[in-house]
């Protein structure tokens, strides 16, 4: 049952993607093979070309088994306390992400609450929250680093987490503004007949009504926090973690390191999102969600 319902579809999709991927890799990488052959003055056969496209050290698109073998080498075959282990590097990024994410949720929900509850907040905060997101984070990152250094918060985790939070609070805020104002007239009026204060309206009505919006935003937001954490790894002098590995891999002509880090990042972020999805399911059930 679970096989038919969940494993089979995923397997099918994964297999399809892998097939497409091999095809694309062969096609894209063959340019280089032909270039090299031309430089050497040879003309390779089709099987030689295909063979070559699967084992280039600097492919346009590495084939899946190259990535998997690199992932294997840097996770399973390395002690997780080693700097060369992707698990170790992933943990650095994960830590930053989670701190930034937590901070982002607090800030996002807090701002959304102020915006929904107060007129002044709505009128003056919302536009500036939007503006904040349109300031390229990379331009702001050095300032964040300097300020947190000046504030004595160090240069390692804190500025990176702030950068992650800076990106991740916004999706939460936008969705929560929508979600907290989603109760309809009758639902609001009911509480008004109880003479309920804004606090009760907020906790008893707005918050539960906003949950679908909240969870939709968490998935986007954790991804944003992740991106922020990775950007932070390049913008601060704390070059470590998956993002830093991608940069170094790219710069030092080790694209496989970059690809492996990229996939590790995708897997990590994917797991975070799946976790959130699981939490959502649990909460939905606890809130009497109707099965669809």
């Amino acid at each position: 049952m679970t096989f038919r319902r969940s494993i089979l579809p995923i397997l099918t999709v994964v297999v399809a993607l892998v097939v497409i991927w091999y095809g694309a890799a062969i096609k894209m990488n063959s340019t280089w093979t032909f270039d090299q052959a031309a430089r050497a003055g040879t003309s390779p056969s089709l099987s030689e070309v295909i063979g070559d496209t699967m084992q280039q050290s600097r492919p346009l698109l590495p084939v899946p088994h190259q990535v998997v073998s690199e992932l294997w080498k840097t996770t399973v075959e390395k002690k997780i306390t080693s700097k060369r282990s992707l698990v170790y590097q992933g943990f650095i990024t994960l830590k930053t992400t989670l701190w930034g994410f937590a901070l982002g949720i607090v800030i996002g929900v807090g701002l959304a609450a102020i915006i929904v509850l107060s007129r002044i907040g709505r009128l003056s905060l919302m536009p500036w929250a939007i503006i904040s997101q349109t300031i390229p984070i990379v331009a702001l990152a050095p300032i964040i680093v300097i300020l947190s250094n000046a504030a004595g918060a160090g240069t390692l985790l804190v500025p990176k987490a702030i950068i992650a939070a800076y990106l991740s609070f916004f999706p939460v805020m936008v969705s929560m503004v929508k979600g907290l104002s989603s109760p309809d007239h009758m639902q609001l009026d009911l509480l008004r007949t109880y003479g309920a204060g804004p606090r009760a309206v907020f906790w008893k009505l707005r918050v539960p009504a906003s949950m679908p919006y909240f969870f939709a935003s968490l998935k986007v937001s954790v991804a944003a926090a992740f991106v922020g954490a990775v950007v932070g790894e390049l913008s601060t002098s704390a070059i470590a973690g998956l993002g830093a590995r991608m940069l170094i891999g790219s710069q030092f002509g080790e694209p496989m390191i970059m690809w492996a880090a990229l996939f590790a990042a995708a897997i990590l972020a994917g797991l975070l999102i799946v976790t959130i999805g699981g939490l959502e399911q649990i909460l939905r059930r606890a809130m009497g969600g109707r099965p669809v």
Partner: protein
Amino acid sequence: MKKPVIDVSGVDLTFPTNDGAVQALKNVDLQINKGDFVSFIGPSGCGKTTLLRCIAGLETPTDGQLTVNGLTPTEARKARSYGYVFQAAGLYPWRTIGGNVKLPLEIMRFSKEEQAKRVRKVLELVDLEGFEKKYPWQLSGGMQQRASIARALAFDADILLMDEPFGALDEIVRDHLNEQVLKLWARTEKTIAFVTHSIPEAVYLSTKIVVMSPRPGRITDIIESPLPKERPLEIRDSPEFIEIAHRVRDGLRAGHEG
């Protein structure tokens, strides 16, 4: 003379819409005294709900005066004077039936035991024992409506505003609940404003029947009931009863034609 609990004078209300303004209430005058049981009856769309909402401070009249216990409706609302049963059940989908009924009690900070006690009591009153843990979508329409009545009764407000509370109930349950409401009313001296579409129900329950007519909504007749406070179900066969019912029906019909 008693001072009226609810004093409506010259109230107008106009809704602006995409499609021109709609006058929902026009020059409504009405006094409701403490302990009155007032029914509102009138064709659909004549402004009954709107008038009830004005009394509850949920809608602000465009013109005229409206006081409740000498306060503005909004102040009275803040003082938690109202129990309101909406025309649609409007239960919160994320709360169980018990949780929905408990909602006002939580807001008004009743103690935990008191909450549990009251929830049990009012659910019994509306015949929903055993459904406490169900979610609204697991209940039938009529059961949802009863739950919403229970919710409004749970916290013992002085003024009950009920907007077609028994619309989705069958005659037998309806009779039963009519009796319960009358008992409650006789016992507690609550002031009740009650919207209904059933002429017998209006006559059976009320001390005062307000007949309204539409476009724009206004009061066309106010009938003081001579029936005694003590009302067995059989009273519905008495000549006084039938006479009042006739008068109401005539008023209604006039409204429909007018």
